[in-house]
């Protein structure tokens, strides 16, 4: 059976069915809805990729696959709000502002990491631009429809646009240290962001004026120059693009909150935010959100001060908080990362699960579609053996849009979609190099040979 599945993938691809939606009935599981409590011995019916019914004793419609989840735990697909997998380029590090570049252009649906993530129960990721630039590129929300060769089929259709910002040491050492241009300091980073917003505002005004005068009969005149970078920044000001900002220190978080306030920007999520707990009430008051590591810090100077209680403190202060991986390995056990908040901060099961489901969905603007098990939402489901927050929890099935994309009992050794004939055998399966780094592509700046 394994062989046949693999052969099918090899020879026909799943591209035709990639955007297809599946139907299935998951019977008698302990359903962890996250938003509507825990339902023992309950069935979940997915029809054409959407959750159609959650109830006891649903009878399977004809021809619909049934998964017996008796003794198993059924939860919403895990969402990783900070990842760099499935991308062919991460940093356009040549300029401190690159709002015009978009990760959606460089999605790589072939990376084996995607399948590994599915094995950890992840169904949706926020694939981010790196943190080399004060204003980096636009990010892309992907559904892990592993099996497709189509770059478009990976994208979660209708997900809001998002963009990566970065504060602190990364942009200052790349551009100030590496290229000897602004920003060299944290003040410089603030200047770059404020100037970009001001330029975008002026750009929008010029275009609005031009478009208005164009309506006058007999109008003659030159249009302003088109600029995709300013176009994109103007969309942030309009609220059409959500900011996700790489940040660590409390002071810089407050700085960006002030900038947002000045420019009327409401939607922002602070990524990492290791000192977020220091300004949790301020974040909550602004409606800003935070996406953090469970217990990871001190890997560089600006992130020396942190706490494993960060997620819990933020949560208790009313900040919509998520836990992210920023790493293909950690992505495979985000449920354990969420579980750590029960040791450090005594979050409830629902609070802890929300960190990797409904909360990241809110941060990515997709909470009406994913993040909890509710009728009408996408059929993105993980079925665990043992409770997902227990150290014994192991994903058995990962389902995206009602289609099983990972099945632990049917897990061939070589799940690559395409075997590159030029690749060495030794590199074939396990590890994708250079695809998982915030600072990917900037290394050359930090060598003595940079000139």
């Amino acid at each position: 059976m394994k062989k046949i599945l693999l052969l099918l993938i090899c020879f026909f691809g799943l591209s035709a069915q990639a955007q297809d939606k599946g139907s299935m009935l998951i019977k008698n599981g302990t359903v962890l809805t996250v938003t509507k409590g825990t339902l023992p011995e309950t069935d979940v019916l997915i029809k054409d990729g959407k959750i159609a019914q959650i109830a006891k004793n649903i009878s399977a419609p004809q021809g619909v696959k049934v998964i017996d989840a008796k003794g198993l735990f059924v939860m919403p697909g895990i969402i990783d709000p900070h990842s760099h997998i499935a991308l062919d380029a991460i940093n356009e590090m040549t300029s401190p502002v690159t709002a015009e570049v978009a990760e959606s252009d460089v999605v790589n649906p072939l990376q084996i990491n995607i399948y590994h993530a599915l094995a950890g129960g992840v169904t949706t990721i926020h694939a981010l631009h790196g943190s080399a630039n004060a204003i980096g590129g636009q990010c892309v929300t992907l559904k892990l429809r592993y099996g497709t060769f189509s770059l478009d089929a990976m994208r979660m259709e209708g997900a809001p646009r998002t963009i990566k910002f970065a504060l602190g040491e990364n942009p200052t050492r790349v551009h100030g240290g590496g290229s000897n241009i602004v920003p060299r300091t944290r003040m410089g980073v603030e200047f770059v962001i404020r100037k970009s917003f001001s330029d975008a505002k002026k750009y929008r005004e010029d275009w609005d004026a031009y478009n208005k005068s164009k309506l006058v009969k007999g109008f003659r005149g030159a249009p302003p120059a088109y600029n995709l970078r300013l176009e994109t920044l103007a969309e942030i000001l309009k609220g059409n693009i959500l900011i996700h900002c790489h940040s660590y220190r409390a002071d810089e978080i407050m700085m960006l909150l002030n900038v947002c306030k000045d420019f009327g920007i409401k939607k922002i999520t602070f990524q990492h935010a290791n000192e977020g707990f220091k300004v949790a009430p301020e974040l909550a008051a602004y409606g800003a959100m935070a996406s953090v590591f469970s217990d990871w810090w001190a890997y560089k100077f600006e992130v020396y001060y942190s706490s494993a209680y960060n997620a819990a403190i933020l949560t208790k202060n009313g900040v919509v908080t998520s836990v992210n991986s920023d790493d293909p390995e950690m992505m495979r056990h985000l449920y354990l990362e969420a579980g750590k908040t029960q040791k450090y901060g005594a979050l409830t099961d629902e609070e802890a699960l929300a960190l990797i489901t409904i909360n990241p969905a809110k941060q990515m603007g997709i909470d009406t579609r994913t993040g909890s098990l509710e009728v009408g939402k996408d059929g993105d489901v993980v079925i665990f053996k043992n409770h997902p927050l227990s150290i014994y929890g192991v994903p058995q099935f990962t389902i995206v849009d009602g289609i099983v994309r990972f099945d632990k009992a049917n897990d061939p050794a070589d799940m690559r979609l395409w075997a590159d004939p030029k690749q060495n055998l030794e590199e074939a399966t396990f590890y994708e190099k250079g695809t998982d780094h915030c600072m990917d592509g900037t290394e050359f700046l930090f060598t003595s040979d940079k000139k």
Partner: protein
Amino acid sequence: MIQRIDNRFTGILFLAIGMFALRGAIAQDEKPVAPVGRSYALTHVNIIPSPGKKIEKGTVVMKDGLITAVGTNVSIPSDAIIIKADSMYVYAGFIDGLSRTGVTKPKDEPGQPRPKDPGNPPAERAGITPQNDVRNWLNPSEKSVEELRNLGFTVSQVVPYGHFLPGTSAVILLSGKSSDEMVLVDQSGLYSELTGAQFIYPNTVMAVMAKWRDLYRNAMLTKNYQAMYAANRNALLRPQNDRIQEAFYPVIDQKIPVVFKAEGLLETQRVLTLKRDLGFSLTMGDLREGFLIMDKIKSSGAKLFLSLDLPDEGKKDDKKPKDKKDSVKTGTKPKTALDLEKEGLEKRKKESIARLTAQAAEFSKAGMVFGFSVLTAKTKDIPANLRRMIAAGLTEEAALTALTTAPAKLLGLDDRLGTIENGKIANLVVSDKPYFNEKAKVRYVFVDGNFYQLESKSPAKPDGKTVAKGNWSYTTETPNGSNNGKLTIKDDNGNLSGIIINSMGKETELKEVQLSGNTLSFTFEFSMGGNTQKVEVSVKIDGDTFEGTLSPGKFGNFPMKGTRDPK
């Protein structure tokens, strides 16, 4: 934010071995000009006037570069030079849809400093020169012209060197004494590659795509405004001249397509994304993995030229273990899990190679129209690659179609090229056996009515002695892109030594330099940030070129090629 020393180090590594270098000007061979005469008759020949048709023992008459008569009952003009081609086969001259045949590679300018603002470099540094015209670099005495013509190719769509937006393409005849004489269609398309500049904007594919949109949309606006200005210039700001924007105008008007190199599965889709966003008409060349997204390509309506390059067929001596010890072991011991895993991985590789080889067959079966491109194919492998494609299911008729009538149509030249018919340009290839026969040899080629006779070469004499000594220029392909550099090998009574020079002009002493047979191997080390990495190199020398791999330990193996510098 994650940092791992390994990856930082990899980047440094590629930079350290990354090089820009002078490429020696290629010596141009002065070939005797083919017999001049403008009237020919090819007699007693099996004519394949178009794919699937055949005229036995026919005659083809040509005059002043045009075909004037084809058939069995044809009178031969008195001034015609008669070429007896008894039992030979004549086909319409082959057409290549994308290459740099006859295009001189501009000299690299080494040691250019990184611009002060790498985010806003001069357009030329960024690779944005769409106003350039490949005709400026056309040279009929480039070796590539003769090499490709000797296979029966008579026409190429050629593009300038460079990346991103190097300039406009031209359709050329593989004949002529000057650039202008070669050109059949100038500015046939606007050429582009999704390749960024090194360490300056646009560096990544995503920035290249963003810049593409920015340039195109700006050009549209400027074009419209120029039209308004032209209609009534009074009291309007004068639009500025901008050759970069103007280069897009014929594309915006749908007068010419954008010709994109679109090799891999993802590159192909990214090109299609740009087409979808901007709406230009599109020609894709050098396609290799299109079969994985056939429907997407089909619905795009893009014109297609499939790569004539194929991956190596893989090792054929799999069954022979490398040394006797292993053979004893494998003979007695059952296969380990590792053996089985390796076998499985090897099998998948072979399946991939088989599918890549069958791309043309799959396209043909799906009813898609396509030609071929030789851009990245090794010229000498082309006939064998065509046979491999045929063995993988492409019919000979479909193969011939893709070499003649289909590309003629795709290039809009089917009134003049692609078949042997009265009035068409006299482009012909004559082989002693049917062309796709393994033993077939091309005997004559006509391009634009010019006659080329191929001497049947005796196989090159193995002179037995490989010389490693000397100065070489090399290129490596690493994840950070393609890099050039210099290599000097010294020979002191059989004791080899040498140095390798990187882009910064940094010299590194070579160690363990050895020549065994035609294999040159050496190692070198470099230190960076407290790490020392040993790099192993092994290349096979073939006269004045070499090919092999560069292996910086666990970072993998990367292809390395070189040519001997002219003395």
